[in-house]
């Protein structure tokens, strides 16, 4: 019954999303207030019915309703309750429903917080969001319903893929989708602005907090995915080249560029068409990612089961949304040109460099992801042409980005000179390099180029991010949330640089064969394999090794890695054990039994690896602080020039746009 109720709710939600789109867009076009007033209630109704459909599917999972095909394929009666709920988004159909659920939450939020915007503008925003919701609902209903019945019902389910039975991965998709889908808000704002034919600084001010929120969720989502890959895939890497990973990376890069470009549009009223384009790109790349993951066009370690109809549908959807918005862009963007100059090494210049580099990296990633397909199209065959130089392609633009970041934070708007706060910057760079060298010599005892560059610039960015808050603190001045958030986020970038370069320079990974009683040493730590015992989990059996880690004879950690065998899917899964502290991770994962009680084990020493994810979390916190700045909450009449929070040297004529 729940399944039928679910599909019925989804159909109603679909109809409501169409009316949201029609009355929102047509109402604004014909300027009919009565029509436009329908958009907001339609959003609420749509949300209620999507939530009901979602609740129905949760109900089916929690109650082990194996007469529902999707539940039978992705759950099992022995699965712990938490994973029964998380299994909902463990495969294609359910994750689409999650996508729709999140989109409708964003829609309701936009509807609730857009009452102070001009009515035609907010109607258009809601209309565009209705079109996107409708497109995804039709996709779900037509090709990918999670509510199909299985007759006769299965006696038990096929279980959730063991690799996905993990806390971080269970919450990874909702976070990531919240980010992906959140960019639809910036997209809708951009389309609405182009339809209105008017884009001023107020527009950038409305758009920016939404974009930052979407961006911060995506940051958390990507960090969770990386953390999961690190300990769950069992080999201790923190990121790797895979179409699905890339799919989430590209919108993030463009979204980061968008946040920065929006700040220029907000403060100076320039970069308008560029900001619009980035807003379109960020969401378009989210859609392209969806297409790549679900169409089977590219091979990925974790793509969904594929079906050509689905690929075709998403492609058609891409053509309508992206193609439509880019056509609109080509038509309307030329009219939005605003004059406004800036000097070399002004704030605008640094932000432009940031944009060019970030978009450049995103372009390289897109090329790297699609190049196998291009080679195939050109008739060279379905091959990879060489080991990816992507790490290099990624790092080369990132270096200037870090340098410009450290300096650019202290640049002035319009004029090409640094603020007084920036004076200590150069000796701080010297200090950072000296510290980096000292850490390399004294702690790691080995020189490494990547480490030197990463530590130096990472520390420099951290110092640079602290300058402004410290100065204000000393002079007892207040700091706006926007500036504080920026400093926090950039502090996180520095942490990330230190973590990533540290682990890449000084990690030690060894595959060893150990018998009970045997031991192996890396980086001064002695790993002793004490014994192995059989243990039982809720839905698996496992062999658990006891590994005693000592340093200079003192016990540092007792690690218990497991090799799990899941009953239903009959698959093995290595569950790593990790000892964590502020300076390093010690990582043990079990490989295969080698006979005679011996086991192959992967032992790793990962210095500073935590700072990769901590850095990402700090970036997200920074975003959260910045997005709650007072000037984003103050209700201003539409179109009024914005002075609140503007720097003292702001454009004397802010209404120029």
């Amino acid at each position, binding site marked *: 019954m729940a399944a039928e109720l679910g599909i019925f709710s989804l159909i109603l939600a679909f109809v409501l999303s169409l009316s949201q789109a029609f009355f929102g867009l047509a109402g604004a076009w014909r300027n009919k207030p009565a029509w436009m007033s329908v958009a907001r209630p339609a959003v609420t109704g749509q949300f209620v019915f999507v939530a009901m459909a979602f609740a129905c599917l949760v109900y089916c999972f929690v109650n082990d309703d194996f007469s529902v095909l999707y539940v039978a394929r992705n759950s099992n009666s022995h699965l712990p309750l938490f994973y029964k709920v998380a299994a909902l988004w463990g495969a294609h159909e359910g994750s689409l429903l999650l996508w729709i659920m999140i989109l409708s939450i964003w829609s309701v939020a936009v509807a609730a917080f857009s009452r102070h915007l001009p009515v035609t503008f907010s109607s258009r925003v809601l209309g565009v969001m209705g079109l996107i919701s409708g497109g995804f609902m039709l996709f779900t209903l037509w090709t990918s319903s999670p509510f199909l019945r299985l007759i006769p019902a299965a006696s038990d389910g096929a279980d959730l893929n063991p690799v996905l039975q993990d806390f971080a991965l269970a919450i990874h998709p909702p976070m990531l989708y919240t980010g992906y889908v959140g960019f639809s808000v910036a997209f809708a704002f951009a389309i609405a602005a182009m339809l209105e034919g008017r884009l001023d600084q107020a527009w950038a001010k409305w758009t920016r907090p939404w974009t930052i929120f979407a961006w911060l969720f995506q940051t958390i989502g990507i960090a969770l995915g990386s953390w999961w890959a690190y300990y769950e895939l069992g080999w201790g890497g923190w990121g790797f080249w895979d179409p699905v990973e890339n799919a989430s990376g590209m919108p993030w890069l463009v979204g980061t560029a968008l946040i920065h470009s929006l700040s220029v549009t907000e403060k100076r009223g320039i970069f308008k068409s560029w900001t619009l384009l980035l807003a379109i790109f960020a969401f378009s790349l989210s859609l392209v990612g969806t297409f790549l993951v679900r169409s089977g066009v590219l091979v990925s370690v974790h793509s969904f089961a594929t079906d050509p109809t689905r690929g075709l549908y998403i492609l058609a959807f891409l053509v309508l949304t992206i193609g439509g918005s880019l056509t609109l862009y080509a038509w309307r963007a030329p009219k939005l040109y605003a004059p406004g100059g800036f000097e070399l090494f002004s704030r605008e210049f640094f932000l432009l460099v940031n944009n060019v580099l970030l978009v450049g990296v995103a372009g390289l990633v897109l090329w790297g992801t699609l190049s196998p397909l291009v080679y195939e199209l050109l008739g060279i*065959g379905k*091959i990879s042409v060489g080991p990816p130089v992507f790490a290099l392609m990624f790092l080369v633009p990132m270096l200037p980005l870090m340098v410009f970041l450290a300096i650019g934070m202290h640049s002035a708007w319009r004029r090409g000179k640094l603020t007084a706060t920036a004076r200590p910057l150069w000796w701080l760079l010297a200090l950072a390099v000296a510290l980096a060298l000292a850490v390399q010599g004294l702690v790691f005892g080995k020189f490494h180029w990547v480490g030197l560059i990463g530590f130096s610039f990472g520390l420099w960015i951290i110092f640079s991010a602290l300058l402004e808050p410290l100065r204000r603190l000393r002079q007892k001045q207040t700091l706006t949330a926007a500036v504080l958030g920026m400093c926090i986020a950039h502090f996180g970038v520095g942490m990330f640089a230190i973590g990533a370069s540290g682990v890449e320079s000084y990690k030690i990974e060894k595959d060893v064969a150990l018998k009970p009683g045997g031991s192996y040493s890396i980086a001064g730590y002695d790993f002793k394999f004490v014994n192995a015992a059989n243990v039982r989990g809720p839905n698996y059996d496992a062999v658990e090794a006891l590994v005693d880690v000592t340093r200079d004879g003192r016990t540092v950690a007792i690690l218990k890695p497991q090799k799990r065998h899941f009953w239903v899917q009959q698959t093995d899964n290595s569950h790593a054990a990790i000892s964590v502290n502020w300076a390093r991770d010690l990582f043990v994962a079990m490989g295969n039994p080698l006979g005679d009680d011996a086991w192959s084990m992967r032992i790793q020493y990962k210095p500073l690896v935590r700072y990769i994810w901590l850095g990402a979390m700090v970036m997200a916190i920074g975003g959260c602080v910045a997005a709650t700045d007072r000037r984003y909450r103050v209700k201003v009449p539409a179109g009024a020039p914005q002075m609140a929070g503007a720097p003292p040297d702001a454009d004397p004529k802010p209404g120029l746009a």
Partner: protein
Amino acid sequence: MWKFLLPFVAFVALVVLFAFGLNPKRDIHALPSPLIGKAAPQFTLSDVLDPSRTVSNASLKGQVYVLNVWGTWCGECRVEHPQLLAIAQTHVVPIIGLVYLDQRDKAAQWLEELGNPYQAVAFDSDGRTAINWGVYGAPETFLVDGKGRIIYKFISPMTQDVWDREFLPRIAAARRDGA
């Protein structure tokens, strides 16, 4: 203002690419190689799993063998791997691996994780052997006859169909001629 049309034009190119990717008849195909019928280039390289051992195709003279070129950086190689394992199970012909432009520990881990269909895997760290063999990329699979000549080359992941249709008859013919 043509420059505002550029994003749209780029997007059209992307759509063409995606439409091609979705084409169900999108086919894998063999490229002609100028090396077909010629003597296979000689190589003597270290064994990827045991650097102290060497792998050379000189020792295979008189045997029909398959040389499969791969790398851990190659996604399609992961796709064809189960097929190679299945082929190795039939013991029709020895499969020699050539892993190129790769890292030894990564390749070893790949084999441990996914299984090892190869009689031996030669480690071509700088890719020179692959260049000698006219390798475009990975995966590629060569068939070499008893006289040491390359008689067939297949680009793209191996499939059962390709194996049955293209490789097995040629292997049988090569053995007949060689006898």
